[in-house]
């Protein structure tokens, strides 16, 4: 067995905005990966969207060469920046599986947050050595001592060796590098054994085709080798092997303990099953590495082209996006109200928003989005079970024996003064308290909550009632039987299928009233009265009326104004294209999603 002692594989984990990406950039800079000119802010957030939203969506990896102070030797450090949002928790767990240790970045002015905890638990599950790092000490509000205590109390990590750093100014970042070398273990693995490499991630690059991120466990992956994917049995000759520095740099091989990329003429990421084991087809191992549990879409919504003739374009665009993100699903859907579109499943709301935004931006599509729904399990009287992704497909209630809905386990961290409101919110959303503990002035509440209560706007509401101080993370828990009903919405006495929703019977009336009231504001006045009703079956549970338009007439209009006024009229007509016609009523596209937001704003 050869020596892997000069390698360290580590992930950076943190609550969102605590400074992962900034720290990663500093580490790259210190190791000379890029010169200052090439150093763009937040180098690793490469997608436009990632840059704009300041979030990391995909895990990123970089190889750094670092000369340690303690022994003057050159170490190969493989760094992984991980996504910070709860929707992408599965990405975090994959990245962690490729490393032996983690840098836990905690904002010294904020302290431990919900995703700090969620990430730490994942790192512990992955048997990681964890180095806590206190970031943002340049901020006046930073309180290193307090946050250290909090980390020890809440997480139980030793912080005696932790230093306060500023990823922004670079203060003490060199010490972080040194502690990676001294405190994290090198990988283990046999260089001479049969090839065993883990497929950590893959993505589609329009120039390069599919790029696969790998972590080699044993043996050596070489250019030219016929590589076999153990799950699918597919064999591909490897065209290119290399590492990110962060620029792509080709190498001849990747050996046990190392991380890097390979390219093998694969057409679609769907052919690369994340967590699969790759081996040498000529000299294969029989032992597959433990895989990952597949990510399952938990939130579904309908996406419809505004312009019905864009249906094919939408189909192609979804297919293209899926080349790069196999975690969302789509299937054709028809709606009486909205025509042809797709029912799409996502990992969470942010994921949903990101896909929608990419469709609109990269493919120039105008979309109507229907309200997100979770997946219900319908146990029918005939003994069968069907999964319901779309309230419009709800079977006749007499044929349903019982319905189960998904629940999550949510962890919320919040300063004491907002705890009351947060607990009230959880109760209002049918939450069941499982734990409530305090660390300093912060409380940690653990709740079981039905997923359908949080998909619309729980996070927004939580942020607004806590003035942005609460943080939140959740894990899927289980399915539980529940008394659920479908509420249909009638506009001008016609049911609009895209507005139907499923709610707990105790909330149906309230929700129905809320939605009717919202629609009253969202649908512009017409030249006639428009009644809006919510109904369960044939029973009307809420009702509002949009009064007829009273005044809309140009005061002065003479000879010179004709062209201008005609243009205005044309615009008024044009504006109608942003509406959907239901009988005689026009509903703005945005109403479909806005109507179902539950907050009182």
């Amino acid at each position: 067995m050869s020596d892997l002692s000069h390698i360290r594989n580590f992930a950076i984990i943190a609550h969102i905005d605590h400074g992962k990406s900034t720290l990663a950039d500093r580490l790259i800079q210190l190791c000379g990966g890029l010169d200052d000119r090439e150093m763009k802010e937040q180098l690793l957030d490469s997608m436009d969207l990632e840059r704009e939203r300041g979030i990391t969506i995909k895990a990123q990896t970089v190889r750094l060469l670092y000369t340690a102070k303690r022994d003057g030797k050159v170490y190969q450090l493989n760094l992984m920046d991980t996504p910070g949002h709860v929707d992408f928790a599965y990405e975090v767990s994959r990245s962690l599986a490729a490393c032996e240790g983690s840098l836990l970045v905690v904002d010294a002015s904020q302290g431990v947050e919900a995703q700090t905890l969620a990430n730490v638990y994942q790192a512990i599950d992955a048997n990681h050595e964890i180095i806590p790092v206190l970031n943002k000490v340049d901020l006046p509000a930073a309180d290193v001592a307090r946050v250290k205590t909090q980390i020890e109390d809440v997480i139980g990590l030793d912080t005696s060796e932790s230093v306060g750093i500023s990823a922004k100014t670079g203060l003490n970042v060199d010490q972080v590098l040194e502690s990676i070398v001294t405190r994290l273990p090198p990988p283990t693995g046999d260089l001479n054994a049969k090839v065993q490499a883990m497929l950590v991630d893959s993505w589609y690059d329009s120039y390069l085709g599919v790029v696969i991120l790998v972590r080699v466990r044993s043996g050596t992956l070489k250019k030219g080798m016929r590589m076999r994917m153990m799950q699918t049995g597919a064999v591909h000759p490897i065209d290119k092997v290399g590492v990110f520095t962060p620029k792509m740099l080709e190498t001849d091989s990747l050996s046990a303990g190392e991380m890097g990329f390979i390219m093998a003429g694969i057409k679609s990421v769907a052919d690369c099953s994340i967590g699969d084991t790759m081996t040498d087809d000529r000299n294969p191992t029989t032992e597959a590495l433990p895989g990952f549990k597949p990510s399952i879409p938990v939130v579904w919504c309908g996406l419809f082209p505004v312009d019905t003739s864009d249906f094919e374009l939408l189909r192609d665009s979804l297919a293209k996006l899926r080349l790069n993100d196999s975690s969302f699903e789509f299937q054709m859907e028809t709606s009486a109200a909205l025509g042809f579109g797709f029912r799409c499943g996502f990992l969470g709301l942010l994921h949903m928003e990101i896909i929608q935004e990419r469709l609109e931006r990269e493919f120039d599509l105008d979309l109507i989005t229907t309200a997100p729904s979770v997946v219900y399990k319908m146990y029918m009287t005939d003994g069968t079970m069907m999964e319901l992704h779309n309230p419009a497909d709800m079977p006749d209630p007499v044929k349903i024996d019982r319905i189960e809905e998904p629940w999550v386990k949510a962890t919320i961290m919040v300063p004491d003064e907002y705890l009351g409101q947060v607990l009230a919110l959880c109760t209002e959303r049918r939450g069941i308290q499982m734990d409530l503990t305090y660390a300093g002035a912060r409380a940690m509440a653990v709740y079981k909550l039905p997923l359908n209560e949080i998909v619309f706007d729980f996070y927004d509401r939580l942020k607004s009632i806590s003035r942005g101080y609460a943080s939140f993370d959740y894990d899927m828990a289980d399915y539980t039987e529940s008394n659920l009903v479908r509420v249909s919405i009638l506009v001008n006495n016609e049911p609009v299928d895209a507005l139907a929703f499923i709610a707990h019977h105790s909330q149906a009336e309230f929700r129905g009233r809320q939605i009717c009231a919202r629609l009253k504001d969202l649908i512009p006045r017409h030249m006639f009265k428009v009644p809006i009703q919510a109904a369960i079956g044939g029973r009307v549970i809420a009702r509002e009326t949009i009064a007829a338009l009273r005044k809309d007439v140009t005061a002065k209009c003479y000879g010179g104004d004709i062209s201008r006024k005609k243009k205005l009229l044309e615009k008024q007509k044009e504006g109608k294209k942003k509406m959907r016609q239901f009988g005689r009523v026009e509903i703005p596209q945005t109403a479909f999603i806005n109507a179902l937001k539950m907050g009182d704003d």
Partner: protein
Amino acid sequence: MDNQDHRIKTIPQGDEGFGLYIHWPFCLSKCPYCDFNSHVVDTIDHGVWSQALIKDLETQSARLTGQGRILTSIFLGGGTPSLMAPNTVAALIDRAADLWPTAPDLEITLEANPGTVDRDRFRDFKLAGVNRLSLGIQSLDDRALQFLGRVHDAKAALAALDTARSLFDRFSFDLIYARPGQSLEDWEAELRQALTLGSDHLSVYQLTIEQGTRFFGAYCRGDFTLPDEDESADLFLLTRDILATAGLPAYEVSNHARPGQESRHNLIYWRGGDYLGVGPGAHGRLRVDADGFRATVAHRRPESWLKRVADTGTGLKEETHIPPRHRAQEMLMMGLRLAEGVSDTRMRRLTGLGLADIIDRDGLSMARSEGLIECEKGQLRATEAGIPTLNALTAALMII
């Protein structure tokens, strides 16, 4: 210039008439709500302007000869045409009367601002041929006049009305209402006072915030608020009610007259007749032949316009061909503003297309069943219920 026009045979002119609009682009000060083409300058060379306006008139009219039009109205608008030298007005009227045969009841209107005219000037305008005055009174309340940035007060307004009344058989005045904080009671009192002032024609406009005006910025900043939709509707209905009862029903959205005293010139716009536009920023619509119409727009800035006239004989900036369908849509849009509505016969005569060709059937059936529109003897007209929401109604009716 455009020789083709000379070959065109006589254009059948109907009761919609044929008018000449002359624009005078100067004012003493710029009102904060006004987006008309008006400018404030230190000095005006009246000789130069008189010649240039006549030149523009001659050049444009030369291209219409042989089409057999009869001039039914002249409108001197602005800006503040009461600032024109009376002999300029006289010269223009005389020239127009040389260029076209004139109707026996030729209407010649001049817009006048209180405070810019004394009795002598009014008389000179009358001698020049003006037979109808339109006065920009705007309000009879001093505080409102101040808010509207007017240079005159209520007293000056009443004095101007007295002078107008003593010299002209026909005069009209403008009022702006639905002002910030204006109550129904306040407006009713003001309107009732207006009714005592002896005019057979009144233009009453709800204050509109136009882009590019001082009020636009102020309104966006929230310096003042306007009546909301319900208040504005109530004010509108009250106005129609009071004026109709007083014998001045609305013949157009904002224009009221004793029957027979309507502005013949403005009716041309609303009925879809031809008009020639002379002066900076003026627009024109002229039927060319069965294939369409010509829309003209002149340069707006006074200096640019003057230079164009000097260089080319006319200040026109743009001439576009308007196909019959497009003109028919304009006729629908403008005609629905009239109490009499749009005439199918006239539309057919002028454009070759009928209402049925340009109207959205679904929109029509909706509007009918809601009682917003009615069709009788070939006239399509918005009902009392339809007028207040005419923009939405027109959008629903029009196929674009």
